[in-house]
């Protein structure tokens, strides 16, 4: 196994240049998939036999919830790599993930609430799924708050990384909460063993949106990681060389 690619990625100037070149390759497909997926979800997908048109909230709720978890896993893994290999750019990636993840966790909670009011009959219940998702939001906010509490970037990196890694335990709890406990929230329709319980015409827009949101996250991360690297490496010579060149 050759590890040269890994060591090259760990070099801030290399990652900075790579991120700048890669951004449009993620951003434009993401924009097309999200706009197309939202149109398909709102217009092309048939209504549900029980929820009627109200089920269309699934097309913004599920991708947001997926983002909240996927971004957290990325953040936790990047934090672990940063801690183990003392890799500065991995900490920069983890720090870039937090605001993105927190915002999509809010979106997942709000859209879920807007679905729950007409369908369940309540905006909010202290159900295991809803409670663990709210804890996820507090983990993101705690991570950002903890980092902001340190003046020294290196100490902020290490303290934040420990919190992010501990919080990883919440991710499987969120996913399996609807299976382990009596819950008001329904079981997974797509990410489950066996066939999805949602037919193709309703599933296709959802899959398009899941891919679109994932690519959108990649594009956002590439932009944010450049800002983080610039801030961390502000005294390095390569920066003035890159900016003037």
């Amino acid at each position, binding site marked *: 196994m050759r590890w040269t690619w890994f060591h090259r990625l760990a070099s801030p100037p290399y990652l900075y240049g790579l991120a700048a070149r890669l951004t449009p390759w993620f951003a434009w497909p993401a924009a097309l998939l999200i706009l197309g997926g939202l149109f398909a979800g709102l217009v092309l997908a*048939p*209504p*549900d*036999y*029980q*929820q009627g048109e*109200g*089920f269309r909230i*699934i097309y913004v709720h599920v991708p947001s919830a997926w983002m909240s978890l996927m971004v957290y896993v990325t953040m936790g893994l990047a934090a*672990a790599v940063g*801690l*183990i*290999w*003392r890799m500065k750019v991995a900490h920069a990636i983890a720090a870039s993930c937090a605001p993105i993840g927190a915002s999509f966790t809010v979106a997942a909670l709000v859209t879920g609430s807007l679905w729950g009011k*007409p*369908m*369940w*009959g*309540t905006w909010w*219940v202290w*159900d*295991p799924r809803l409670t663990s998702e709210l804890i996820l939001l507090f983990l993101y906010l705690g991570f950002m708050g903890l980092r902001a509490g340190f003046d020294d970037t290196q100490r902020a990196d290490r303290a934040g990384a*420990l919190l992010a*890694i*501990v919080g*990883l*335990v919440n991710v499987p*709890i969120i996913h399996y909460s609807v299976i*382990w*406990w*009596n*819950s*008001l929230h*329904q*079981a*997974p*329709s797509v990410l*489950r063993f066996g066939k999805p*319980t*949602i*037919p193709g*015409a*309703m599933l296709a827009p959802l899959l398009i949106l899941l891919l679109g949101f994932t690519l959108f996250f990649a594009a956002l991360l590439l932009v944010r990681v450049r800002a983080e690297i610039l801030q961390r490496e502000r005294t390095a010579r390569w920066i003035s060389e890159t900016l003037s060149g």
Partner: protein
Amino acid sequence: MTPRQRRLGLVVGIIVGVSIAGGLALSAFRKHVTFFFDPSQVASGQAPVGESFRLGGMVANGTVQRAPGSLEVRFTVTDFAHDVPVSYTGVLPDLFREGAGVVAQGHLRSDGTFVADEVLAKHDEKYMPPAVAKSLKRRHGEARSDPGS
């Protein structure tokens, strides 16, 4: 052991430790974090008496009765082993249906009726276009209507 291996061990140790602690705490709380009690638990006396709790199960087919001229509804919640009669006055959520899941908050009256203050509908994970649901129901109905009915 290199410093890097030591840090790797530390991270793995944290994850394993927190998972074990979390797993133990969750399994200890498992009974207490029950979001609702099902009719069998109510029948065996596990649900709190005289206190408010949540009752969950399926609305038994053919049991929903509406009192004319008021918002009072009576129905039976079942888990196919035991039944609990429920009385509720108020607006029902859109997904409330016979044969569908329901979670009701309220208390048990001494005559065994559950008086609900709030009724929430539980959604199953199935999605279907209405036309598919209709043809499915029709086929289902034909298959079942052979013998007695």
